[in-house]
């Protein structure tokens, strides 16, 4: 039977159809339609699991992939070597297993939630019992449902559903404002504890104390002449090169979020003292910077703080940080994001007037200027101040979710850097034949397509180079010749000398002298630059 909406979509089939559709289409509208179709067809638990899965909140892994491989080979009645060869060629474990198994004895329809509950119930169960349950499941699912079932076990639905896209679909489905939805989707929650109803209602719960606001992001500009209005409409600050963070002080608790929606409170214990200083009901937006003896240190110094599992006193001493604050999002327990920037900033200044300067908390200074032309001089001097350019913020702008043109601009010293996603790695020649030295990077298009746009050679430290090589081997999706396709997960900053239009590339863009400047371990894929950013750069550079 052909797979079609409505006709046969029962139980998990709805999710399966949605997944295939998201994978097959590159058009935003089609994706939104598919998401809405799904939302209007399934029970609430299935809605939440879908949202959870596509926002990285997958169910806990309860079965090891090693066992899955063994069991699949057994069930398919093939030797393990043949399973491994097949896996090697198919490149996806869930898919390999789904394709290898014999046809199902009888098809059973269960909802997504029911299958996930079954998978969760396997936790800490004896292996033989686990095996029996997994076999039963395989026996009752067709090939494409099995693929989904296996994915639910192993995780890794890497399908392009950005937070923005999800919020858009949910907003259309629920008739709630997309920015409200986006806010409710942030923070720490699990489909097990967060119901679809609570997503709709305005109720307070445990999770809402920790919930961050969606970050407001800046567009790049290349010339100040692009600024609209009068100089008096704008505030200039330095652009700091650290980790963007949102510090939340609510109900006697403190949380620190990175831009990648990652809770990084534990990585920066020095900020915990701030609870006694910052009044509850305050949310600060700023940059965590490596800072020692009154100087801002290069970005690498903060990497260890993020990558280390455990932050020891020694690390705190060797790699101290400060939180340099530039915006106030919540004050006296109220969301003040809709106030103009200049009002928020005034409140922020008042707050800082009462804070002792010995704390690892600083205010990002406002740079005075009368004419736009003066900004050029300020920008040129920015590196002496440990910054990488200027931020230009419209005084009247509200703090909206994501990017909005004409509100915040970043004007970097080196105008040409982008954060891009690693998708292919190619091994070198001769002595370096077993090392991956040549990397291909991609950005997302508005439609959610991952478009390769440049190759770049390593400009990484030796240590990082070894690390990335090991990572590539573990995260290969497919191989063709010397090239490996890897999971789109790592973000790198690419610097380049120029940007041109190119008919040859699918992205329509070619870079001159691209090189990898650094590995942005602090960024997740959703934070990388987009095709739109590149197109904007292209337009500006003409």
């Amino acid at each position, binding site marked *: 039977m*052909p*797979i*079609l909406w409505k006709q046969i979509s029962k139980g998990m089939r709805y999710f399966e159809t949605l997944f295939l559709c998201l*994978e097959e289409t590159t058009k935003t509208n089609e994706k939104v339609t598919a998401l809405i179709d799904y939302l209007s067809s399934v029970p609430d638990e299935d809605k939440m699991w879908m949202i959870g899965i596509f926002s990285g909140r997958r169910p806990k892994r309860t079965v090891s992939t090693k066992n899955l491989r063994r069991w699949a080979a057994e069930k398919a009645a093939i030797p393990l070597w043949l399973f491994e060869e*097949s896996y090697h*060629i198919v490149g996806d474990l869930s898919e390999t297993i789904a*394709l290898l198994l014999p046809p199902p004895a009888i098809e059973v329809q269960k909802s997504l939630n029911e299958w996930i509950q079954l998978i969760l119930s396997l936790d800490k169960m004896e292996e033989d019992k686990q095996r029996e349950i997994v076999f039963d499941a395989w026996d009752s699912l067709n090939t494409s449902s099995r693929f989904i079932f296996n994915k639910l076990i192993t995780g890794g639905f890497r399908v392009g559903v950005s937070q923005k896209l999800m919020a858009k679909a949910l907003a259309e489905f629920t008739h709630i404002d997309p920015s409200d939805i986006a806010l409710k989707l942030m923070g720490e929650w699990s489909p097990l504890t967060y119901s679809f109803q609570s997503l709709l209602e305005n109720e307070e719960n445990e999770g809402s104390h920790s919930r961050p606001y969606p970050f407001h992001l800046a567009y790049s500009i290349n010339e100040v002449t692009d600024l609209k209005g009068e100089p008096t409409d704008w505030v200039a600050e330095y652009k700091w090169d650290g980790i963007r963070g949102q510090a939340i002080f609510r109900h006697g608790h403190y949380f620190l979020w990175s831009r990648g929606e990652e809770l990084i409170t534990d990585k920066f214990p020095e900020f915990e003292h701030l609870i006694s200083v910052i009044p509850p009901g305050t949310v600060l937006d700023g940059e965590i910077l490596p800072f020692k003896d009154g100087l801002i240190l290069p970005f690498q110094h903060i990497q260890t703080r993020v990558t280390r599992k455990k932050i020891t006193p020694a690390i705190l001493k060797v790699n101290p940080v400060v939180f340099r604050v530039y915006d106030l999002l919540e004050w006296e327990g109220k969301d003040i994001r809709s106030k103009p920037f200049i009002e928020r900033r005034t409140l922020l200044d008042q707050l800082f007037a009462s804070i002792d300067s010995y704390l690892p908390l600083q205010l990002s200074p406002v740079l005075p200027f009368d004419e736009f032309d003066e900004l050029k001089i300020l920008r040129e001097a920015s590196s002496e101040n440990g910054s990488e350019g200027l931020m230009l913020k419209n005084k009247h702008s509200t703090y909206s979710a994501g990017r909005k043109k004409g509100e915040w601009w970043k004007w970097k010293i080196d105008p040409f850097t982008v954060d891009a996603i690693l998708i292919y790695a190619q091994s070198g020649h001769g002595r370096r034949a077993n090392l991956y030295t040549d990397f291909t990077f991609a950005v997302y298009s508005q439609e959610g397509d991952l478009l390769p746009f440049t190759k770049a050679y390593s400009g990484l430290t030796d240590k990082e180079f070894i690390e990335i090589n090991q990572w590539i081997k573990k995260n290969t999706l497919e191989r063709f010749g010397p090239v490996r396709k890897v999971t789109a997960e790592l973000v790198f900053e690419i610097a380049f000398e120029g940007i041109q239009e190119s008919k040859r590339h699918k992205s329509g863009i070619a870079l001159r002298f691209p090189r990898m400047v650094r590995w942005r371990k602090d960024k997740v894929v959703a934070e990388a630059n987009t095709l739109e950013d590149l197109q904007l750069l292209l337009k500006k550079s003409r």
Partner: protein
Amino acid sequence: MANKGLLVHTALGLYCPKADVYLDPWKPVKKAILSHGHADHARWGSSSYLCTPTAAPVIKYRLGDINLETLPFGEEKLINGVSFSFHPAGHILGSAQIKVSYKGEIVVFSGDYKTANDGFSEAFEPVKCHTFITESTFGLPVYHWQDQKWVFNEMQEWCKNNRNNGQLSILYGYSLGKAQRILQGLPESVGPIFTHSTIEAVLNVMRNQGVSLKNTVTVNEHLTRAELLSGVIIAPPAVQNSNWLKKFEPIRNGVVSGWMALRGARRRRNADKGFVLSDHADWEGLNEAIGLTGAENIFVTHGYTDILSKWLIDKGLNAHPLETNFEGDEVL
């Protein structure tokens, strides 16, 4: 090769020294016997060729003015005491397995084959032999074909959906083999079938040889979009990223190939939709065909040679991989 030297593996291809004949040679030779007309099997430049009568017209059309003889399925031709005969391989129209026998020793070269009957090509017939040289294009247990009826149904639903969305459906398949299979297999309800000119050329060669094929219309500038929307276009894969398609936007690309069984291949091919339909045997088909020959020696060519050989050895057969220059007609 362990067949008492009846066939040997040479740089030019499989060779029968006793008869001085090559099977599907890769370079020009004196006498070539061809399993079928795909470009990796039928190459230009040999002094004389032998193939089945149904395969002959397309081979002539593709290779030009060649010295070509035909031999009907099941009939024997003796060359210097060695007997050669063709047996249906079920791959495409006129495709054959080549049976070579001499003094009671039988070797069969499979060429490309599929065991399922597609209703258009002469259906595969197993041939008993001592040595079987088998292809292995899809020699991996992940390849398992659905009944073609199911696939054609899926195609029809897809075309219907696209039409409702105002999108033109384009199905990609090789002009020799896949295109005819799609044409004959699509249900009438998809509407008129439009073809790219390279496909139409092959169809016309077949029509001229008396094969009954459905009516088609070559895509031309006089056709309106509404007319095209009422049906479906069949085009060769090479066209997929060419300018030829620009004027048809919005379109949907449906790639018809066994490789479409894998998601990675679908993505790489930029297929909006992949239809898993192959003219090669799947894993079960290969194993079944190999078993039916009763052969004690198996040589595996053309595909996953190492993996299939190892599997056959595990099963107690005397199997060997045989590296060849066949590039495969279902390459991406």
